[in-house]
C-alpha cells in the first residue's frame, strides 16, 4: 500500500501548489502588450534554420574541403542569418514601446557631504604641509625604485652601438649576391646598392648607394678630397629623416633645363645632392647622408677608404656629438 499512499500525497501537493499559484494576483503590466505576428515568427524560424545549415556547412567544409573562401562564406552566412533573425525579432516580435526618463542631475548635497568628510578627516593633523612633503618624497623614491628595473630593457647610457658601422678601411664593396663592385662597371645615370664584404647586412649602417658623376661637377665639403675616385661616390642608403631606404635616383634627361642628379627617399621625398656630399636639397631630412670614402684597388675593385663621415640613420638628440666608429 505504500506506493499508493505516496502517489496520493504527491497529487495533493501538486494540486495545492497549483491552487496557490492561481490565487496569486498578476501585477499590472510593465511592458505593454502587443499583437502576435505569426508571419514574422515564420521568418525568424526560417532564418534560424538557414543559420543552422550554414553552421553545419562550416563544420563539414572544415573537415572535407577547408577552403578559406568557403569557410568564410559559411561562417558569415550563419552570423548574417542570426543577425537578420534578431533584426526581425526587434522590428516585429518584441513589444515596440518608448520609455521616458529624466536625465541624471548633479547632487549638490552629496558633493558637499563628500567635501566635508574629506576636510574633517584631517583635523587631527597639525603639520599638514610637512607631512605632505614627506609623503611626496617617499612616493617619489618608491616610484624611482619601481621604475629603475626598466633600465634593464636596453643600453640606456651606452650610446656607442648607435655610432658603430661594419665599414673599415680596405673592406670591399659587394653587390647583393656578394660579387665585388668593379669601378669600370659603375655607369653614369644609374645607381647601385652595395654591402661590406663578409659583414652583417642587418645593421642599418651596412647598405650604401653608389653613383658616378663627372669629377668636374663635384663640390664635396672640405676634407673629403680623394673620397670619390673617378667621380664614384658612396653614401649610406638609409635616409637621415625616418630611416627609409634611399630607393630613387633622379637623373636629368635634359641637363640644361632640368635639376641635377639627386638621391631621393620615396617615403617623404627627402632629396640629397650627391655632388655636394649629399646635402639636403628638399624634404624633411635634417642632415646629409653620411658619405663613405672610397678607393680603387689594383684589381679595379671598390674598397672603403675609411668609415662614414657621420652616424648613419635617423637623427637623435646628440647625433652630431660623435663620429661614426
Amino acid at each position, binding site marked *: 500500500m505504500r506506493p499508493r499512499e505516496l502517489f496520493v500525497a504527491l497529487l495533493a501537493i501538486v494540486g495545492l501548489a497549483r491552487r496557490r499559484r492561481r490565487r496569486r494576483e498578476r501585477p499590472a503590466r*510593465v*511592458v505593454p502588450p502587443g499583437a502576435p505576428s505569426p508571419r514574422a515568427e515564420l521568418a525568424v524560424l526560417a532564418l534560424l534554420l538557414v543559420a543552422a545549415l550554414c553552421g553545419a556547412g562550416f563544420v563539414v567544409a*572544415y573537415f572535407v574541403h*577547408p577552403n*578559406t*573562401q*568557403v*569557410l*568564410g*562564406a559559411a*561562417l*558569415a*552566412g*550563419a*552570423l*548574417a542569418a*542570426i*543577425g*537578420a533573425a*534578431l*533584426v526581425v*525579432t*526587434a522590428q516585429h516580435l*518584441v*513589444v*515596440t*514601446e*518608448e*520609455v*521616458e*526618463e*529624466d*536625465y*541624471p542631475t548633479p547632487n549638490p548635497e552629496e558633493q558637499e557631504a563628500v567635501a566635508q568628510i574629506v576636510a574633517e578627516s584631517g583635523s587631527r593633523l597639525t603639520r599638514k604641509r610637512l607631512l605632505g612633503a614627506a609623503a611626496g618624497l617617499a612616493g617619489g623614491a618608491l616610484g624611482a625604485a619601481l621604475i629603475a628595473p*626598466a*633600465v634593464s*630593457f*636596453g*643600453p*640606456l*647610457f651606452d*650610446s656607442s*652601438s*648607435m655610432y*658603430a658601422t661594419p665599414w673599415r678601411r680596405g673592406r670591399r664593396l659587394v653587390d647583393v649576391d656578394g660579387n665585388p663592385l668593379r669601378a669600370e662597371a659603375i655607369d653614369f645615370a644609374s645607381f647601385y646598392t652595395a654591402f661590406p664584404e663578409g659583414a652583417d647586412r*642587418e*645593421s*642599418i649602417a651596412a647598405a650604401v648607394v653608389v653613383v658616378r658623376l663627372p669629377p668636374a661637377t663635384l663640390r664635396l665639403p672640405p676634407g673629403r678630397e680623394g673620397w670619390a675616385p673617378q667621380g664614384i661616390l658612396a653614401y649610406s642608403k638609409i635616409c637621415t*629623416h*625616418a*630611416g*627609409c631606404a634611399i630607393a630613387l635616383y633622379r637623373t636629368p634627361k635634359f641637363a640644361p633645363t632640368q635639376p641635377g642628379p639627386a638621391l631621393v627617399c620615396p*617615403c617623404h621625398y627627402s632629396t640629397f645632392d650627391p655632388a655636394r656630399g649629399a646635402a639636403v636639397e628638399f624634404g624633411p631630412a635634417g642632415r646629409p647622408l653620411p658619405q663613405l670614402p672610397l678607393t680603387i684597388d689594383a684589381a679595379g675593385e671598390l674598397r672603403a677608404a675609411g668609415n662614414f663621415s657621420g652616424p648613419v*640613420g*635617423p*637623427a*637623435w*638628440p*646628440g*647625433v652630431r656629438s660623435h663620429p661614426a666608429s
Partner: protein
Amino acid sequence: MRSDPLRDPVRFVDERTGAAPFLRKALRYAFPDHWSFLLGEVALYAFVVLVATGIYLTFFFEPSTGQIVYHGPYAPLRGVQMSEAYRSVLDLSTTVKSGLLIRQTHHWAADVFVAAIVIHLLRIFFTGAFRKPRELTYVIGVTLLFTALLEGYLGYSIVDDLLSGMGLAIGNGVALSAPVVGGALGRLLWDGPFPGGPAFEPRMFIAHVLLLPVLLATLIGAHLTLVAARHHTQFRRDARTTERRVVGIPSFPGQAPRSLGLLALVAALLFALGGLVQINPIWL
C-alpha cells in the same frame, strides 16, 4: 526556504547581491532611436571579434626573430632564410585549417575597428555630444582611438614581413626624434640600435596581446560606464525630447535584439571580408 537558482533565478541573485533595483533600471534604460548611435557599437563589436580571433592566433604565433631556413609546403619561399615569427605566420596562412580565415578576419576587424571609431568620433564632434557633462567620455574615446592605432601598428609589426620592417624603421625614427631623451628611448625600447635586439620581438608581442588589449578593454569599460551614467544624448524630435528628459527604446526587450543583431551582422561582415577579400598577403 531556499531559493532555487534555476526556477527563480532573479530571486536567487537578488537575495545574494541586491541587484534587482539595478537590473530593473538597466533593463528599462532608454536608448534614443537613431542609426548614428550604432557607430560606437560597431567599434565595440569589432573589438569583440578582434579579441576572439586574436586569442586563436596566439596559439600559432611564435614571437621570435631567430633565423631559420624555410622548408615548408609553400614552394616559392623554400630555401629562403626568415625569422621564426614570419615562418609561424606563413604556416598559419598556408597549412593551418581556417588559419588564414581567422588571420584575415583579425586584420579586417582591426581596420573596421579604427574606421568605426573615427566615424563615431565625427558624429560625436559634429553633434556637439562631447560637451559637458560628457567631456570625460570624449577624452577617453580619443585616447581609445590612439591606443587602437598603436595596437594595430604593433599587430602588423610582429609579423616580421616587409611591411613590418618598413613600419618599424619609421617608428624607430620617430622614437629617436624625441627631444633630449630620443636616443635613450630608442635604445631602451628596441634593446639597442635598429633593427633591435632579440628581446624586441617578444616585447612587441606581449604589448600587442596583453598590455594594450587590457588597456583597451579598461578604457572601453570606463567609456561605457560613463555613457550609461550620464545617459545618451538625443536629437530633438518632438516636444518630449528636451535637455532634461530622454526618450528612447528600453534596453530590454526593445534594444537587446537590435544590438545583438548588430553584433551578429558586424561579425558576419568581418568573416565575409576575412574569407573572401584578401588582406596583407605576407607570402608575396
